């Protein structure tokens, strides 16, 4: 039996604050730098 839709219905729902943070230009610029840093770390590992 496929419970996927039931699982989706009970999955964590982001709050309005979380959704706003995901669109906030200042916060997201910071996340842009942070995520790129994480990715560069992965890439450095790959090209070591």
């Amino acid at each position, binding site marked *: 039996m496929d419970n996927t839709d039931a*699982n*989706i219905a009970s999955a964590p729902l982001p709050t309005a604050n979380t959704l706003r943070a*995901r669109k906030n230009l200042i916060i997201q*610029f910071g996340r842009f730098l942070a995520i790129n840093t994480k*990715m560069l770390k*992965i890439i450095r590992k790959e*090209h070591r």
Partner: protein
Amino acid sequence: MARVVVLGGGIAGHTAALHLTRMLKRSDEVVVVTPNSNWNWIPSNIWVGVGKMKTDQVTFKLGPIYKRKGIAYEQALATAIHPEGGPGRPGPYVEVTYTDPTRAGEHGELEYDYLVNATGPKLNFGATPGLGPDGHSYSVCTSGHAVDAAAALQGSIARMKTGEGQVLVVGMGHGTCTCEGAALEYAFNVEHEVRQAGVRELADIVYLTNEYELGDFGVGGLTFTQQGFQTTSKLWTESLFRERGIRAVTGAHVTSVEKGVVHYEQLDGSHSSLAFDFAMLLPPFRGVDLQAFDSDGEDISAELFAPNGFMKVDADYSGKPFEEWRAEDWPSTYQVPRFPNIFAVGIAFAPPHPISRPRKSPSGTVIAPSPPRTGMPSGIMGKLAATSITEMTKHGASAKVPSGSMADMAAACVASAGSGLRHGSAASMTMYPVVPDLAKYPGTGRSLDDTFGEIGLAGHWIKLLLHYMFIYKAKARPGWHLIPE
């Protein structure tokens, strides 16, 4: 002087060719054989498929780049490899059929010292009756397919604007498909577009997938830390589906597609049908139609290729059960064991087994994602083959070549969930290693420090940055080689 023939001009083949021409001596020759005259940044096809980008923004002509870099370019389809040469012909060669309009249909033979098979996949729409652009569903596998998908999607949006409800199905067209991430991206971009068009309430969007559960992505799912907890890509993806109101059907093998109806079997053995107004379903992949012959002209294709048409390399193909899978099963040099001057990289190499746990329905239908090996891993393998060949030209067949197993390879992936510099969104993910290594990382099989996921506008900016950066690199502009794979 060495002659290297690269079959395929996609991410793996093109990367290999560019690095080869940089690493080899000027007297060495690099030849690229590819049936398509264009290079395509496939990750951005999903934006073409919703009308946010044009074809010329994701493709460019390979010919002028190769002319500038001194790479010989043959617009042709490789049909057979003769790794031992042939009767009266001592050296190895490849047979090709030209697709270049000026020589269309002509037969050719290209001798090589080293061969890189980067032929990518054959889009196997034929595996599912009615699947694909020649049937009743759309695809975003090529930029041309994506243009057609965008036009059909706009048709559905236009009908919704007249008040007509539409069922939009996006997902996988067969139980053994790969690239679930791309289908998921497209589903969320479709949702983004209908929301932007102001008709979201009239769209029933269904994601139809062969994954056992959401967030599997063909890599058995991910575990990462978030706000002090370990969480899974399953929960994370389900949360995104809940937030955006997209339904999902998992563990599904599409058995056929008719006009406006998709039929599928699920892991529990049930058979269902889903009526749709628009469907974008990706095809399963298989190896291209390439044969191999020995010096007597005997067919040795079964030695060089797995039954799915992908090339067998230095992996363990003994077919061990899931419980016995090990990281060491995966290839590290991508050389064909009996012919170490042949490399198969990117999608062209045969994985020893899936990464996700394989599952079957009660009737025996295999419903399990095939392992992804596109994008960053493809580029890394292309460069690895170029480095190995360069070492072999310097030191002979006994040269020490670098290794790069997917069980020791990291991948970064950005899955778009809608485009727009202010309103876009994407899931940024990294994983290390791609193939879980439970001996090295007990529990999850991956490093929790190097595996993470995050959703937000920043992800869209990163995906856009990668789009421009990799097209710049592929065009071999100044400093291209400094941009990592």
